[in-house]
């Protein structure tokens, strides 16, 4: 259950945040662009496990703050910010692959910039990036196991504990089956979504 919660909250947070990051990356203001590209570099260039530890221990070691019940929020912040960076790069690739003629046709027809993005560009981007998003979502299912670094009780840490206490290999097998089944469901759902957008090329 806790694994599912991490998974869902991360997607709810990072899918929209990634779009905001992708759009800010094309900002007219150079400092904004610089900040965003620095953020993406760090998120992609350091291990997620390390980032989770920084979010968890950072407030105390850096600022001497002692926040109660910080374990779970730190986990979600770490996951959301990390995945938003990856999604932002996927979105950027998608947005850049839309031919400039689509923007020009929309402009000549009098669509506003917002209309052009929401009605013309975004639906096409979503179709293009679907396979990459599926990849990322599958990775996320497996990455939830990293929550064990903060001693958060999800599938992986639980199976490790049980395995140690019962000196049995079985809990790991069960954890493996759990991840596999979860990803199998993700695959089926994403295939459906992709298929629903098959009506045009």
């Amino acid at each position, binding site marked *: 259950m806790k694994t599912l919660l991490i998974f869902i909250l991360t997607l709810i947070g990072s899918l929209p945040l990634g779009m905001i990051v992708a759009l800010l990356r094309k900002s007219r203001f150079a400092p904004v662009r610089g900040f965003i590209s620095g953020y993406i570099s760090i998120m992609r260039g350091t291990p997620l496990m390390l980032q989770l530890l920084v979010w968890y221990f950072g407030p105390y070691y850096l600022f001497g703050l002692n926040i109660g019940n910080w374990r779970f929020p730190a986990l979600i912040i770490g996951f959301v910010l990390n995945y938003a960076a990856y999604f932002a790069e996927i979105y950027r690739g998608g947005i850049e692959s839309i*031919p400039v*003629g*689509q923007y*020009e*046709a929309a*402009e*000549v*027809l*009098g*669509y506003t910039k917002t*209309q052009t993005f929401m*009605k*013309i560009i975004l*639906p*096409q981007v979503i*179709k293009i990036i679907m396979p990459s998003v599926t990849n990322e979502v599958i990775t996320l299912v497996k990455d939830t196991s990293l929550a064990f670094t903060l001693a958060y009780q999800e599938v992986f840490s639980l199976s490790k504990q049980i395995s140690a206490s019962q000196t049995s290999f079985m809990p790991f097998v069960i954890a493996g089956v759990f991840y596999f089944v979860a990803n199998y469901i993700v695959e089926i759902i994403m295939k459906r979504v992709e298929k629903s957008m098959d*009506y*045009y*090329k």
Partner: protein
Amino acid sequence: MILEMNNIEKHFGELEVLKDISFGVDSGEVISIIGPSGSGKSTLLRCATFLETIDGGEIIYMGEKAAHTDENGNAVYVPHQEMRKFRRYCGLVFQQFNLFPHYSILKNITDAPIHVQHVSQEEAEANAMELLGKMGIADKANAYPYQLSGGQQQRVAIARALAMKPEILFFDEPTSALDPELTGEVLKVIRQLAEEKMTMVVVTHEMPFAKAVSNRVLFMDGGVIVEQGDPRDVFDNPQEERTKQFLRVFER
């Protein structure tokens, strides 16, 4: 006058693309612009349809100034809000059609009238069906662009532009991406529009078409209008050496 473009200047970096170009379009007139690649034809069209901004000169639609040059020599456009009015005056048909692939043919044509001009859906659809009928592709209303031939797609693009009821319609090499057979069906539609007195400016390499359909031909080269006039004069009796040289290529 529907459109007047006076002393238009445009450069991309160091490269001067349009050098002091002036021309006007009267209501019901069909003008063909011919000339070699890189002569500035397309850029001129893109300036007229506000896809590119001019660096000098003035653009006047229906007697109202959309852009002019101030005392410092900078081109100034009317404020954003007013610009929408000027955009409504003109339509543009692209070489690559640029239909919206995720919209059905009908939605390609009705979406802008409904969401930009706030026409009712019933009215927009009735108008779209009439236009599709005129284009000879009424049976394709529920198809998607990828299911159509290039010639059919371009006719949809023409219908999409006409659905906005522009005062003037520009064509940027509308048949350059089509094979000869499909070219014919698109030119037929443009010819039909000319007979209905639709005001049009067509950048084209189809010389027989330009000669047969247009009231006036502009020959551009190196960012200037080298020669212009009645198509019979320009094609059969060109005055400028550069025009003769260009047209000779097409005689072979």
